[in-house]
């Protein structure tokens, strides 16, 4: 078996086991209504997580996504209140957030700085701009919003797949195609595997880095649109800490934090596991919501240790293979 699919299988196993345990205790968890709500409630998280998967696959990190979501929501609320058509607002805000990500990517590449500090600055900047636009929570009341939130596809037996849940599924499918079936996807995996080798093999490092962060911020903008449809409001303190939930979802989904190994499909499972824990807390009724954080932290720890074990085993297997074939040691100086 390919060891690279092992993390994905482990995530799938955890998800199925957790769902089975939940369903044993609350048989209602099996209804399509719960499944459809799982998709709707986690739509914005899933969309950002696709972008974050690409960032982490390339060996980087993006801390600005939560602030970008809040910025998008506030921007839409303020411009719609000022009389802008929501559809024009959507296009404008997607352009702004994508450009924002491209600038961060350019800084990371050309200034040779760690992604975490550049995106930290981006996080402060986006949140600060939100606060400057307004510190209030502004409701969005527009016919277009009513139409969009009303759209849903009725699944037999009662569930409703809302528009935003559908958008998330589409983004995941697009992400899977982009990661595994395009030149850009290969370049991302190459960068994360070994930057120097990728560069020597002709991967356009500058363009790919800028595109990765533009994609991440652009998807955060899309998530912001979805979030504003979900809450029908714009609030500058919204979506704090979403960057951490997103990183956790990507890691639980089996993507190696060192970059180069992972799948977009795994991230989907990571998001669903988080959603499942929240749903369980709601079904139980007596548990406090902070148990969600503790369980997610525990899972994060378990998966990281599991990944370290896999990397360690792979290194030992390579070493054993090298000794068996009697290949000479390649010294860096030689």
């Amino acid at each position, binding site marked *: 078996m390919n060891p690279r699919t092992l993390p994905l299988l482990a995530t799938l196993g955890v998800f199925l086991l957790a769902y089975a345990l939940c369903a044993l205790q609350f048989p209602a968890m099996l209804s399509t209504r719960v499944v459809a709500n799982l998709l709707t409630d986690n739509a914005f998280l899933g969309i950002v997580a696709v972008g974050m998967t690409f960032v982490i696959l390339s060996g980087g990190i993006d801390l600005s996504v939560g602030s970008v979501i809040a910025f998008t929501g506030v921007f839409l609320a303020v411009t719609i209140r000022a009389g802008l058509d929501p559809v024009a607002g959507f296009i404008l805000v997607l352009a702004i957030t994508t450009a924002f990500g491209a600038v961060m990517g350019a800084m990371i590449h050309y200034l040779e700085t760690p992604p975490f500090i550049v995106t930290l*600055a981006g996080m*402060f*900047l986006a949140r*600060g701009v939100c606060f*400057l636009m307004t510190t209030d929570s502004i409701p969005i009341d527009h016919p277009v919003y009513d139409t969009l939130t009303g759209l849903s596809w009725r699944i037999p037996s009662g569930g409703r797949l809302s528009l935003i849940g559908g958008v998330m599924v589409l983004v995941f499918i697009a992400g899977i195609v982009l990661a595994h079936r395009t030149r850009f996807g290969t370049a991302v995996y190459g960068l994360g595997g070994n930057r120097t080798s990728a560069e020597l093999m002709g991967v356009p490092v500058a363009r790919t880095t800028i595109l990765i962060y533009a994609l991440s911020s652009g998807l955060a903008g899309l998530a912001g649109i979805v979030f504003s449809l979900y809450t029908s409001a714009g609030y500058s303190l919204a979506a704090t800490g979403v960057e951490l939930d997103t990183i956790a979802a990507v890691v639980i989904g089996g993507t190696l934090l*060192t970059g180069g190994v992972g799948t977009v499909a795994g991230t989907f499972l990571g998001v669903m596991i988080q959603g499942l824990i929240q749903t369980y807390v709601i079904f139980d009724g007596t548990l406090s919501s902070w148990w969600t*954080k503790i369980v997610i*932290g525990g899972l994060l720890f378990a998966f*990281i240790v599991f990944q370290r074990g896999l990397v360690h085993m792979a290194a030992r297997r390579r070493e054993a293979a090298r000794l068996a074939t009697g290949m000479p040691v390649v010294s860096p100086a030689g």
Partner: protein
Amino acid sequence: MTLARPFRALPAATPQILTFALVLFANWLVFPDFFDLRLQDGRLFGSLIDVLNRGAPVAILAIGMTLVIATKGVDLSVGAVMAIAGAVAATLAADGHSLPVIVLAALAVGLACGLWNGILVAVLDIQPIIATLILMVTGRGIAQLVTEGQIVTFTHEGLIAVAGASLLGLPMPVVIAFALAGLAAALVRFTALGLLIEAIGINRTAATYAGVDSRSVLIAAYAVSGLGAAVAGLIAASDIRGADANNAGLWLELDAILAVVVGGTSLFGGRFSILLSLVGAFVIQAMNTGILLSGYPPEMNLIVKATVIVLILIVQSPAASRMKTFLRPPESRR
């Protein structure tokens, strides 16, 4: 050479001290009473003292963060550890325990958190940003567990004195911050510890081969960071006479990282100064106070911070230093 070592930081400190002076000067321009100090009941009052007092928790966090960043790591969990330590202290205070018991318990909790981070980084070889992310996600949940989901308040004289009392006219938090910074700076500069930390930050593998016990030094750096977070948590709890698990120390990890970066410690590891990080923390607080005094919305803070990070990144970047070499007159080039 051996004598010069402790004083080596002095000429290098010029940009930070100039920045601090400049920010203070700007504050004086917008608020002419800025430097007014008055002595009342044996205690100094004034905006300048206020800057030091409000900046003290971040200054204390910055001490440990400096050591961690010098090893090429980062500690994202300090804000959450503050919340846990504050929750433990407030709960014990509400139960009427004596001050030494409260302080020791809070410090023990901070030390345990630091050791946990250190073991994840040094023994399990997990990237620092992710290793400390686990505690950052889980920490607030744990703090909620301690306070049982409530904001615990107390009227414990001893604990209130931690932030409320004064020594030699200075508020206690300022005294604690300066004492801890002096102690830590002496420890790393008058012993080989600072050298070992720098060696690990520059190249951990090389340092290990050269005989540095990099595991112990790394664990010690994270332990110091955890202890500092516990002290800052005690001050924060004492300041509001209660423990708020959701908001205590929220986003302070970012301020602490910013303070260290403003202080000139390299994010690429290897070059650090604890005393300059202290100056960095007070620069940040002076900017906050200045924005408040000048009547601009406090939300401007985030944008100012983002601009500062970007400027420092540009100045510190390898690209800028290449540019400097390029622009230097030919005769001084080697």
